[in-house]
């Protein structure tokens, strides 16, 4: 008997919403000024969404509490940047290292995939010793790994490869995807749609993985390791593969972050970046992919845009609002986070997905009718 996959109304509704969002992104990009904060938020949000979902795969679905995300993003960002700087620009970028040792450039897509693969390879290597650790100890070890990576990439001896502590730049960014005419004027804007496409494809792959037999084993391990092992699930193998897959997508996310920021410098991949992503995962709901996506856009919008006004003097009808000055945004932001953690402990979505919400509504309607 072949198993039939049912297409639920929730899946259809989710697909419709996603397509609508993509269409809206594309259309607004054509008509709104490209310098609008909206696009900054959307680009960074799409990047963070992918990294948050990859972290959720590991922390939420497999139950391995890892804090190495910034380290894997760093590997991804550097791999991408190093491999894509045009040969003609290398002398300018690697000015202290005689143009560096790599004298070729890859197209964008292969470079992004390699960025993910290299991050996954590093995950495989450090996973061998580190994945024997449990809970907090794993978190500490992976956090240490990320810090070590940050130092290694700034190491002067590696300069011909990583440009030492100097930044890498002049590689293709999101803006290079805009289609231009012969005069160099942009005809079709794609710089926001592209990160959405990359993230979207990657997140779709993760969702399909989680819903496969293989992915169900991850959830089984999180729910009960002993029972999972008794069912014949190889714990070591599955933990390792979850760690590598998560790191692969963190690496891809790192490459996207490089494209978003236009330049890469190892010192910006701090543990604070990992915490930001952890925060997104927690706010969105541990174990909810759509929750992570939603909260990543909310988080980025709040931190980069909506709460910016708090950093400047605001005068309302001749009355100057007290306390508002540089840095106050972060105070308000922290308070919002505390409120979320205190009152919405399961995050925005809990462990539900967008399609679950539609399906449940449908069931309720059915019960009434």
């Amino acid at each position, binding site marked *: 008997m072949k198993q039939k996959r049912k297409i639920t109304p929730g899946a259809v509704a989710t697909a419709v919403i996603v397509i609508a969002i993509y269409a809206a992104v594309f259309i607004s990009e054509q008509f709104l000024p490209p310098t609008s904060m909206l696009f900054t938020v959307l680009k960074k949000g799409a990047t963070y969404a992918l990294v948050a979902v990859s972290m959720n795969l590991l922390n939420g679905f497999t139950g391995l509490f890892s804090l190495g995300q910034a380290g894997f993003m760093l590997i991804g960002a550097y791999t991408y940047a190093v491999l894509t700087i045009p040969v003609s620009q290398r002398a300018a970028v690697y000015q202290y290292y005689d143009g560096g040792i790599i004298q070729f450039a890859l197209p964008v897509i292969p470079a992004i995939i390699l960025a993910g693969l290299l991050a996954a390879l590093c995950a495989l290597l450090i996973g061998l010793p580190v994945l024997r650790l449990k809970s907090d100890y794993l978190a500490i070890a992976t956090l240490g790994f990320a810090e070590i990576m940050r130092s290694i990439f700034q190491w002067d001896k590696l300069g011909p490869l990583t440009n030492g502590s100097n930044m890498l730049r002049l590689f293709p960014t999101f803006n290079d995807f805009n289609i231009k005419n012969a005069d160099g004027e942009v005809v079709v804007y794609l710089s926001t749609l592209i990160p959405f496409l990359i993230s979207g494809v990657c997140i779709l792959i993760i969702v399909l993985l989680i819903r496969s037999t293989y992915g169900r084993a991850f959830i089984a391990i999180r*729910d*009960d390791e002993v029972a999972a092992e*008794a*069912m014949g*699930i190889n714990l070591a193998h599955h933990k390792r593969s979850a760690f590598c897959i998560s790191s692969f997508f963190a690496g891809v996310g790192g490459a996207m972050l490089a494209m978003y920021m236009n330049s890469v410098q190892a010192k910006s991949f701090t543990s604070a970046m990992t915490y930001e992503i952890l925060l997104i995962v927690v706010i969105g709901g541990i174990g909810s992919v759509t929750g992570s996506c939603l909260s990543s856009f909310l988080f980025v919008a709040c931190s980069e845009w909506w709460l910016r006004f708090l950093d400047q003097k605001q005068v309302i009808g001749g009355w100057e609002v007290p306390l508002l000055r540089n840095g106050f945004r972060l105070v308000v932001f922290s308070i919002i986070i505390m409120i979320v953690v205190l009152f919405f402990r399961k995050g925005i979505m809990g462990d539900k997905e967008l399609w679950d919400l539609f399906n449940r509504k449908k069931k309720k309607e059915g019960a009434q009718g």
Partner: protein
Amino acid sequence: MNMLKVTNLKVSYGGIEALKGISFDVEQGQIVTLIGANGAGKSTTLRAISGLVKPASGSINFMGQDITNLNPQRIVSTGISLVPEGRRVFVNLTVKENLKIGAYLRQDKDEIEETIQDIYRRFPRLKEREWQLAGTLSGGEQQMLAVGRAMMARPKLMMMDEPSLGLAPLVVKDIFSIIRDLKSEGITILLIEQNANAALRCADFGLVLETGRITLTGTGESLLNNEQVKEAYLGAD
């Protein structure tokens, strides 16, 4: 025929011997029960057979194959399933997904759905709850699910660790009738129970375990009538 042969099995946890060399056989098609107080080593015996703990010495032979040092995956694929103590269903997976995890090592993916339907016929309650998360089931339903999940691997030997623990008396009755049904279908059962009375009533053979040693063996009936067993495990009347 001896399906399972355990010889001089010793298991220690950090220097403390939980099993001090036990030997017993399980005959094909029978229900064999291990009874004993807390800490006697009952669960350890099952964990050692299923490969979740490594024995310090001794051997475990299943259907002519030495499985002493195999990993749990290999042992499950030889045909031994464990229904762990406290049910341990995957609370965040649906009933159906739990069943599918039980078939994780099966290669014949097309026939899995058929086995699921078999299990639904046996436990119609699970069919009703098919799409519910296992965490929302009652204790009895979770136990049914744990048994169903173990059956998904199509075991030849099913080991059950305290299946009646924490269940209402009526549900306990159901569980024991399920165990008898499984036997009538040819599945051999190794059962651990605190509820020695009910276990010995349905068992063909019983073993009494005391602090890591087997102290008494006999048919279920003979142990039920044994004065020592009566006093220690059944409550003197």
